[in-house]
Protein backbone atom coordinates (compact mmCIF):
# COMPACT_ATOMS: atom_id res chain seq x y z
CA UNK A 1 0.00 0.00 0.00
CA UNK A 2 1.20 3.53 -0.71
CA UNK A 3 0.50 6.52 1.48
CA UNK A 4 0.23 9.64 -0.68
CA UNK A 5 0.42 13.01 1.03
CA UNK A 6 -0.16 16.00 -1.23
CA UNK A 7 0.16 19.50 0.26
CA UNK A 8 -2.10 21.32 -2.19
CA UNK A 9 -5.37 20.53 -3.91
CA UNK A 10 -3.77 20.86 -7.35
CA UNK A 11 -1.18 18.29 -6.34
CA UNK A 12 -3.91 15.99 -4.99
CA UNK A 13 -5.76 16.17 -8.33
CA UNK A 14 -2.58 15.33 -10.21
CA UNK A 15 -2.00 12.34 -7.93
CA UNK A 16 -5.61 11.18 -8.31
CA UNK A 17 -5.37 11.42 -12.10
CA UNK A 18 -2.28 9.22 -12.02
CA UNK A 19 -3.60 6.89 -9.33
CA UNK A 20 -7.40 6.68 -9.70
CA UNK A 21 -7.22 3.57 -7.48
CA UNK A 22 -6.02 5.65 -4.50
CA UNK A 23 -8.68 5.97 -1.78
CA UNK A 24 -8.99 9.52 -0.43
CA UNK A 25 -8.90 9.79 3.35
CA UNK A 26 -10.09 12.93 5.16
CA UNK A 27 -11.26 12.44 8.77
CA UNK A 28 -10.90 8.70 8.30
CA UNK A 29 -14.04 7.95 10.32
CA UNK A 30 -15.41 5.76 7.52
CA UNK A 31 -12.17 4.72 5.79
CA UNK A 32 -10.30 3.59 8.92
CA UNK A 33 -13.17 1.39 10.10
CA UNK A 34 -13.00 -0.42 6.75
CA UNK A 35 -9.22 -0.80 7.03
CA UNK A 36 -9.25 -1.90 10.67
CA UNK A 37 -11.75 -4.63 9.87
CA UNK A 38 -10.07 -5.68 6.66
CA UNK A 39 -13.13 -4.81 4.59
CA UNK A 40 -10.97 -2.84 2.25
CA UNK A 41 -7.34 -3.12 1.13
CA UNK A 42 -6.77 -0.25 -1.27
CA UNK A 43 -3.49 -0.07 -3.16
CA UNK A 44 -3.01 3.48 -1.90
CA UNK A 45 -4.39 6.02 0.56
CA UNK A 46 -4.55 9.65 -0.51
CA UNK A 47 -4.40 11.83 2.61
CA UNK A 48 -6.33 15.08 2.22
CA UNK A 49 -5.74 16.49 5.71
CA UNK A 50 -2.61 18.45 4.80
CA UNK A 51 -4.46 20.50 2.19
CA UNK A 52 -5.28 23.85 3.80
CA UNK A 53 -7.66 24.90 0.99
CA UNK A 54 -10.07 22.08 1.81
CA UNK A 55 -10.43 23.29 5.38
CA UNK A 56 -11.53 26.85 4.50
CA UNK A 57 -14.80 28.53 3.64
CA UNK A 58 -15.51 31.70 1.71
CA UNK A 59 -18.46 33.59 0.29
CA UNK A 60 -18.75 33.39 -3.50
CA UNK A 61 -21.48 35.37 -5.28
CA UNK A 62 -23.64 35.49 -2.16
CA UNK A 63 -23.27 31.73 -1.63
CA UNK A 64 -21.15 30.05 1.00
CA UNK A 65 -18.46 27.75 -0.35
CA UNK A 66 -17.52 25.31 2.40
CA UNK A 67 -14.36 23.25 1.82
CA UNK A 68 -14.98 19.50 1.80
CA UNK A 69 -12.51 19.02 4.65
CA UNK A 70 -14.08 21.33 7.24
CA UNK A 71 -14.81 19.11 10.26
CA UNK A 72 -18.30 19.00 11.77
CA UNK A 73 -17.15 20.66 15.00
CA UNK A 74 -16.10 23.77 13.09
CA UNK A 75 -19.34 23.84 11.10
CA UNK A 76 -21.26 23.79 14.39
CA UNK A 77 -19.10 26.36 16.18
CA UNK A 78 -18.24 28.74 13.38
CA UNK A 79 -20.96 28.38 10.74
CA UNK A 80 -23.95 27.57 12.92
CA UNK A 81 -25.61 30.95 12.43
CA UNK A 82 -25.19 30.95 8.65
CA UNK A 83 -25.95 27.29 8.00
CA UNK A 84 -28.52 26.32 10.64
CA UNK A 85 -29.66 23.13 8.90
CA UNK A 86 -26.18 21.81 8.25
CA UNK A 87 -25.15 22.65 11.82
CA UNK A 88 -28.17 20.80 13.21
CA UNK A 89 -27.33 17.70 11.21
CA UNK A 90 -23.65 18.01 12.17
CA UNK A 91 -24.57 18.11 15.87
CA UNK A 92 -26.22 14.70 15.58
CA UNK A 93 -23.22 12.99 13.99
CA UNK A 94 -21.48 10.38 16.16
CA UNK A 95 -19.72 11.85 19.18
CA UNK A 96 -17.43 14.81 19.89
CA UNK A 97 -14.41 12.76 18.77
CA UNK A 98 -16.13 11.80 15.51
CA UNK A 99 -17.28 15.38 14.87
CA UNK A 100 -13.75 16.66 15.49
CA UNK A 101 -12.49 14.56 12.57
CA UNK A 102 -15.45 13.76 10.30
CA UNK A 103 -16.22 16.01 7.33
CA UNK A 104 -19.05 16.76 4.93
CA UNK A 105 -16.72 15.72 2.09
CA UNK A 106 -16.37 12.32 3.74
CA UNK A 107 -20.12 12.04 4.22
CA UNK A 108 -20.57 12.74 0.49
CA UNK A 109 -17.72 10.41 -0.46
CA UNK A 110 -19.24 7.56 1.54
CA UNK A 111 -22.74 8.41 0.19
CA UNK A 112 -24.43 6.21 2.77
CA UNK A 113 -28.23 6.51 2.53
CA UNK A 114 -28.09 7.19 6.29
CA UNK A 115 -25.52 10.02 6.14
CA UNK A 116 -26.88 12.89 8.19
CA UNK A 117 -25.86 15.82 6.02
CA UNK A 118 -27.55 14.54 2.86
CA UNK A 119 -31.17 15.54 3.58
CA UNK A 120 -30.00 19.02 4.57
CA UNK A 121 -27.93 19.42 1.40
CA UNK A 122 -30.89 18.29 -0.71
CA UNK A 123 -33.46 20.51 1.00
CA UNK A 124 -31.10 23.49 0.92
CA UNK A 125 -30.33 23.24 -2.83
CA UNK A 126 -26.65 22.59 -2.17
CA UNK A 127 -24.30 22.21 -5.10
CA UNK A 128 -21.31 19.90 -4.84
CA UNK A 129 -18.11 21.18 -6.45
CA UNK A 130 -15.99 18.30 -7.71
CA UNK A 131 -12.71 18.62 -9.52
CA UNK A 132 -10.12 16.72 -11.51
CA UNK A 133 -7.19 17.71 -13.70
CA UNK A 134 -9.80 17.84 -16.50
CA UNK A 135 -11.69 20.65 -14.80
CA UNK A 136 -14.44 21.43 -12.30
CA UNK A 137 -18.03 20.20 -12.24
CA UNK A 138 -20.85 21.73 -10.20
CA UNK A 139 -23.28 18.92 -9.31
CA UNK A 140 -26.63 19.74 -7.67
CA UNK A 141 -27.08 17.56 -4.58
CA UNK A 142 -30.18 16.02 -6.17
CA UNK A 143 -27.97 14.57 -8.93
CA UNK A 144 -25.10 13.49 -6.69
CA UNK A 145 -26.49 10.36 -5.02
CA UNK A 146 -26.77 7.51 -7.50
CA UNK A 147 -27.33 4.41 -5.40
CA UNK A 148 -26.50 2.75 -2.08
CA UNK A 149 -23.03 4.14 -1.29
CA UNK A 150 -22.64 5.28 -4.90
CA UNK A 151 -22.16 8.87 -5.94
CA UNK A 152 -21.54 10.84 -9.12
CA UNK A 153 -17.74 11.08 -8.70
CA UNK A 154 -15.52 9.85 -11.53
CA UNK A 155 -12.44 7.85 -10.46
CA UNK A 156 -10.11 10.80 -11.04
CA UNK A 157 -12.28 13.33 -9.21
CA UNK A 158 -12.19 14.72 -5.69
CA UNK A 159 -14.82 16.70 -3.82
CA UNK A 160 -13.60 20.27 -3.40
CA UNK A 161 -16.48 21.98 -1.61
CA UNK A 162 -20.20 22.35 -1.11
CA UNK A 163 -21.99 25.56 -2.06
CA UNK A 164 -24.96 26.68 0.02
CA UNK A 165 -27.23 29.67 0.36
CA UNK A 166 -25.43 32.11 2.67
CA UNK A 167 -28.68 33.65 3.95
CA UNK A 168 -31.03 30.72 4.11
CA UNK A 169 -34.62 30.87 5.33
CA UNK A 170 -35.78 28.70 8.22
CA UNK A 171 -34.22 25.22 8.20
CA UNK A 172 -34.78 22.19 10.40
CA UNK A 173 -33.33 18.69 10.62
CA UNK A 174 -34.53 15.78 12.73
CA UNK A 175 -33.36 12.23 13.10
CA UNK A 176 -34.74 9.13 14.78
CA UNK A 177 -32.37 6.89 16.72
CA UNK A 178 -32.10 4.96 19.95
CA UNK A 179 -29.87 7.49 21.71
CA UNK A 180 -28.86 11.12 21.40
CA UNK A 181 -25.29 10.26 20.44
CA UNK A 182 -23.55 7.70 18.29
CA UNK A 183 -26.58 6.74 16.27
CA UNK A 184 -26.96 5.82 12.64
CA UNK A 185 -30.28 7.32 11.64
CA UNK A 186 -33.29 5.00 11.58
CA UNK A 187 -34.66 7.74 9.38
CA UNK A 188 -34.06 11.45 9.09
CA UNK A 189 -35.72 14.47 7.55
CA UNK A 190 -34.73 17.99 6.58
CA UNK A 191 -36.87 20.95 5.60
CA UNK A 192 -35.80 24.31 4.22
CA UNK A 193 -38.19 27.19 3.57
CA UNK A 194 -37.10 29.54 0.79
CA UNK A 195 -39.43 32.53 1.38
CA UNK A 196 -37.77 34.74 -1.25
CA UNK A 197 -38.67 32.24 -3.98
CA UNK A 198 -41.84 30.99 -2.27
CA UNK A 199 -40.40 27.49 -2.41
CA UNK A 200 -39.92 24.59 -0.02
CA UNK A 201 -37.13 22.02 0.16
CA UNK A 202 -37.81 18.68 1.84
CA UNK A 203 -35.73 15.51 1.86
CA UNK A 204 -35.59 12.14 3.59
CA UNK A 205 -32.59 10.13 4.74
CA UNK A 206 -32.13 6.47 5.64
CA UNK A 207 -35.45 5.63 4.03
CA UNK A 208 -34.56 4.72 0.43
CA UNK A 209 -31.49 3.45 -1.48
CA UNK A 210 -30.32 7.05 -1.62
CA UNK A 211 -31.17 10.18 0.29
CA UNK A 212 -33.91 11.80 -1.75
CA UNK A 213 -36.14 14.84 -2.09
CA UNK A 214 -39.85 14.61 -1.36
CA UNK A 215 -40.87 16.57 -4.44
CA UNK A 216 -44.65 16.14 -4.19
CA UNK A 217 -44.54 17.26 -0.56
CA UNK A 218 -42.43 20.30 -1.50
CA UNK A 219 -44.88 21.35 -4.21
CA UNK A 220 -47.96 20.78 -2.10
CA UNK A 221 -46.60 22.87 0.76
CA UNK A 222 -45.31 25.71 -1.42
CA UNK A 223 -48.86 26.06 -2.77
CA UNK A 224 -50.48 26.03 0.67
CA UNK A 225 -48.25 28.49 2.50
CA UNK A 226 -49.23 32.13 2.56
CA UNK A 227 -45.76 33.67 2.52
CA UNK A 228 -46.83 37.33 2.49
CA UNK A 229 -49.33 37.19 5.34
CA UNK A 230 -48.18 34.13 7.24
CA UNK A 231 -50.61 32.59 9.67
CA UNK A 232 -50.40 29.59 11.93
CA UNK A 233 -50.58 26.40 9.92
CA UNK A 234 -53.70 24.29 9.64
CA UNK A 235 -53.36 20.79 11.05
CA UNK A 236 -54.72 19.39 7.81
CA UNK A 237 -51.82 20.96 5.90
CA UNK A 238 -49.24 19.57 8.29
CA UNK A 239 -50.83 16.14 8.11
CA UNK A 240 -50.98 16.08 4.32
CA UNK A 241 -47.37 17.25 4.14
CA UNK A 242 -46.35 14.39 6.47
CA UNK A 243 -48.22 11.86 4.31
CA UNK A 244 -46.55 13.07 1.14
CA UNK A 245 -43.11 12.94 2.78
CA UNK A 246 -43.74 9.34 3.88
CA UNK A 247 -44.86 8.48 0.34
CA UNK A 248 -41.58 9.76 -1.06
CA UNK A 249 -39.68 7.14 0.93
CA UNK A 250 -39.16 3.52 -0.07
CA UNK A 251 -37.61 2.12 3.08
CA UNK A 252 -36.62 -1.44 3.91
CA UNK A 253 -36.94 -3.57 7.04
CA UNK A 254 -33.56 -3.88 8.74
CA UNK A 255 -31.98 -4.17 12.18
CA UNK A 256 -32.56 -0.50 12.90
CA UNK A 257 -36.26 -0.45 12.12
CA UNK A 258 -39.07 -1.71 9.93
CA UNK A 259 -40.17 -0.05 6.73
CA UNK A 260 -43.60 0.66 8.23
CA UNK A 261 -42.06 2.31 11.28
CA UNK A 262 -39.79 4.43 9.12
CA UNK A 263 -42.71 5.73 7.07
CA UNK A 264 -44.70 6.48 10.19
CA UNK A 265 -41.75 8.23 11.85
CA UNK A 266 -41.00 10.28 8.72
CA UNK A 267 -44.55 11.66 8.68
CA UNK A 268 -44.13 12.64 12.34
CA UNK A 269 -40.72 14.27 11.74
CA UNK A 270 -42.10 16.13 8.72
CA UNK A 271 -45.07 17.57 10.64
CA UNK A 272 -42.90 18.53 13.58
CA UNK A 273 -40.07 20.17 11.69
CA UNK A 274 -42.56 22.01 9.48
CA UNK A 275 -44.16 23.39 12.64
CA UNK A 276 -40.80 24.62 13.92
CA UNK A 277 -39.70 26.06 10.58
CA UNK A 278 -42.99 27.90 10.05
CA UNK A 279 -42.80 29.23 13.60
CA UNK A 280 -39.35 30.63 12.71
CA UNK A 281 -40.82 32.25 9.62
CA UNK A 282 -43.74 33.76 11.57
CA UNK A 283 -41.30 35.11 14.15
CA UNK A 284 -39.13 36.67 11.50
CA UNK A 285 -42.06 38.29 9.67
CA UNK A 286 -43.36 39.69 12.96
CA UNK A 287 -39.93 41.14 13.78
CA UNK A 288 -39.55 42.68 10.34
CA UNK A 289 -43.03 44.31 10.44
CA UNK A 290 -42.57 45.72 13.92
Amino acid at each position, binding site marked *: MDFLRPDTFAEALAVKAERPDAVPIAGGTDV*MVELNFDHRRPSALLDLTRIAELREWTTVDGRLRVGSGVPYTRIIEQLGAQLPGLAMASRTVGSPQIRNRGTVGGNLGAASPAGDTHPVLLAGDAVIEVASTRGTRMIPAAEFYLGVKRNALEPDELIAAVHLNATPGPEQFAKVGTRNAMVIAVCSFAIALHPAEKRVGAAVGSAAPTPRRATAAEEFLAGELDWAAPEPLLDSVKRRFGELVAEAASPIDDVRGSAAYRKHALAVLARRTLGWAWQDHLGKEARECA
Partner: protein
Amino acid sequence: MRVNVTVNGEQRQADDVWEGESLLFVLRERLGLPGSKNACEQGECGSCTVYLDDVPVCACLVAAGQVQDREVRTVEGLADGDRLDPVQEAFVEAGAVQCGFCTPGLVVAAHDLLERVPQPSDPEIREALAGNLCRCTGYEKILDAVRLAAARR
Protein backbone atom coordinates in the same frame (compact mmCIF):
# COMPACT_ATOMS: atom_id res chain seq x y z
CA MET B 1 7.05 3.69 5.95
CA ARG B 2 8.60 5.89 8.62
CA VAL B 3 6.49 8.26 10.70
CA ASN B 4 7.91 11.23 12.61
CA VAL B 5 5.59 12.67 15.18
CA THR B 6 5.77 14.64 18.41
CA VAL B 7 4.24 12.60 21.22
CA ASN B 8 3.82 14.11 24.67
CA GLY B 9 6.31 16.80 23.78
CA GLU B 10 8.98 14.40 22.55
CA GLN B 11 10.06 13.92 18.94
CA ARG B 12 9.43 10.24 18.13
CA GLN B 13 10.06 8.05 15.13
CA ALA B 14 8.27 4.85 14.18
CA ASP B 15 9.70 2.56 11.52
CA ASP B 16 8.22 -0.18 9.34
CA VAL B 17 4.76 1.29 9.80
CA TRP B 18 2.19 -0.33 7.51
CA GLU B 19 0.44 2.36 5.44
CA GLY B 20 -3.03 1.29 6.56
CA GLU B 21 -2.12 1.19 10.23
CA SER B 22 -3.87 3.35 12.82
CA LEU B 23 -2.31 5.90 15.15
CA LEU B 24 -3.55 3.71 18.01
CA PHE B 25 -1.47 0.77 16.79
CA VAL B 26 1.59 2.99 16.40
CA LEU B 27 1.23 4.36 19.93
CA ARG B 28 0.63 1.02 21.61
CA GLU B 29 2.76 -1.38 19.60
CA ARG B 30 5.56 0.75 18.19
CA LEU B 31 6.10 3.57 20.66
CA GLY B 32 5.48 1.71 23.91
CA LEU B 33 2.54 3.84 25.01
CA PRO B 34 -0.23 1.41 25.99
CA GLY B 35 -2.26 4.00 27.94
CA SER B 36 -4.70 4.55 25.08
CA LYS B 37 -6.84 1.43 24.95
CA ASN B 38 -8.02 -0.62 22.03
CA ALA B 39 -11.54 -1.95 22.42
CA CYS B 40 -13.63 -1.48 19.30
CA GLU B 41 -11.37 -0.07 16.57
CA GLN B 42 -14.39 1.64 15.08
CA GLY B 43 -14.79 4.90 16.95
CA GLU B 44 -17.65 3.68 19.11
CA CYS B 45 -16.08 3.41 22.57
CA GLY B 46 -13.67 6.34 22.93
CA SER B 47 -11.14 4.32 24.96
CA CYS B 48 -8.43 5.32 22.45
CA THR B 49 -9.09 9.08 22.76
CA VAL B 50 -5.95 11.22 22.37
CA TYR B 51 -5.27 14.83 21.48
CA LEU B 52 -4.14 15.37 17.90
CA ASP B 53 -2.96 18.97 17.54
CA ASP B 54 -4.96 19.79 20.69
CA VAL B 55 -8.21 18.25 19.41
CA PRO B 56 -9.53 15.00 20.96
CA VAL B 57 -9.92 12.22 18.40
CA CYS B 58 -10.23 8.45 18.30
CA ALA B 59 -6.67 7.24 17.65
CA CYS B 60 -8.10 4.09 16.06
CA LEU B 61 -9.57 6.21 13.25
CA VAL B 62 -6.47 8.23 12.42
CA ALA B 63 -4.16 6.75 9.81
CA ALA B 64 -0.56 6.59 11.00
CA GLY B 65 0.63 8.61 8.01
CA GLN B 66 -1.77 11.43 8.88
CA VAL B 67 0.20 12.31 12.05
CA GLN B 68 3.51 12.93 10.27
CA ASP B 69 4.95 16.18 11.69
CA ARG B 70 1.96 16.65 13.98
CA GLU B 71 1.55 16.67 17.74
CA VAL B 72 -0.10 13.92 19.73
CA ARG B 73 -0.79 14.01 23.45
CA THR B 74 -1.88 10.80 25.13
CA VAL B 75 -3.08 10.06 28.65
CA GLU B 76 0.57 9.38 29.52
CA GLY B 77 1.32 13.02 28.76
CA LEU B 78 -1.20 14.57 31.16
CA ALA B 79 0.59 14.03 34.46
CA ASP B 80 3.44 16.31 35.50
CA GLY B 81 6.09 13.74 36.42
CA ASP B 82 4.69 11.91 39.43
CA ARG B 83 2.00 14.53 40.01
CA LEU B 84 -1.28 13.43 38.47
CA ASP B 85 -3.30 15.91 36.45
CA PRO B 86 -6.23 17.25 38.53
CA VAL B 87 -8.66 15.36 36.28
CA GLN B 88 -6.81 12.09 36.95
CA GLU B 89 -6.75 12.83 40.68
CA ALA B 90 -10.48 13.53 40.67
CA PHE B 91 -11.18 10.20 38.93
CA VAL B 92 -9.26 8.37 41.66
CA GLU B 93 -10.88 10.27 44.51
CA ALA B 94 -14.41 10.05 43.19
CA GLY B 95 -14.16 6.29 42.66
CA ALA B 96 -14.70 6.72 38.93
CA VAL B 97 -12.35 3.85 38.08
CA GLN B 98 -13.37 0.21 38.29
CA CYS B 99 -11.70 -2.06 35.73
CA GLY B 100 -10.03 1.06 34.33
CA PHE B 101 -10.28 0.16 30.68
CA CYS B 102 -12.35 3.19 29.72
CA THR B 103 -10.47 5.54 32.05
CA PRO B 104 -7.68 6.85 29.79
CA GLY B 105 -10.14 7.87 27.09
CA LEU B 106 -12.54 9.42 29.57
CA VAL B 107 -9.73 11.31 31.29
CA VAL B 108 -8.61 12.83 27.98
CA ALA B 109 -12.20 13.71 26.98
CA ALA B 110 -12.88 15.27 30.41
CA HIS B 111 -9.55 17.11 30.32
CA ASP B 112 -10.47 18.65 26.98
CA LEU B 113 -13.94 19.64 28.22
CA LEU B 114 -12.49 21.50 31.21
CA GLU B 115 -9.92 23.25 29.02
CA ARG B 116 -12.75 24.57 26.84
CA VAL B 117 -15.50 24.95 29.47
CA PRO B 118 -14.00 25.35 32.95
CA GLN B 119 -17.37 25.18 34.72
CA PRO B 120 -19.52 22.86 32.64
CA SER B 121 -23.19 22.17 33.33
CA ASP B 122 -24.34 18.57 33.71
CA PRO B 123 -25.74 18.43 30.17
CA GLU B 124 -22.41 19.78 28.89
CA ILE B 125 -20.53 17.05 30.75
CA ARG B 126 -22.84 14.36 29.38
CA GLU B 127 -22.51 15.70 25.86
CA ALA B 128 -18.71 15.90 26.08
CA LEU B 129 -18.47 12.29 27.29
CA ALA B 130 -21.08 10.88 24.90
CA GLY B 131 -18.37 9.25 22.80
CA ASN B 132 -16.90 7.24 25.69
CA LEU B 133 -18.40 3.97 26.88
CA CYS B 134 -17.93 2.47 30.34
CA ARG B 135 -19.18 -1.03 31.12
CA CYS B 136 -18.53 -0.88 34.87
CA THR B 137 -19.38 2.32 36.68
CA GLY B 138 -22.82 3.30 35.47
CA TYR B 139 -21.27 6.73 34.78
CA GLU B 140 -22.46 8.45 37.99
CA LYS B 141 -19.02 8.41 39.61
CA ILE B 142 -17.49 9.59 36.36
CA LEU B 143 -19.81 12.60 36.36
CA ASP B 144 -18.87 13.17 40.01
CA ALA B 145 -15.20 13.12 39.06
CA VAL B 146 -15.66 15.74 36.36
CA ARG B 147 -17.68 17.95 38.71
CA LEU B 148 -14.96 17.57 41.34
CA ALA B 149 -12.19 18.46 38.91
CA ALA B 150 -14.21 21.49 37.74
CA ALA B 151 -14.85 22.65 41.32
CA ARG B 152 -11.12 22.61 42.04
CA ARG B 153 -10.11 24.72 39.10
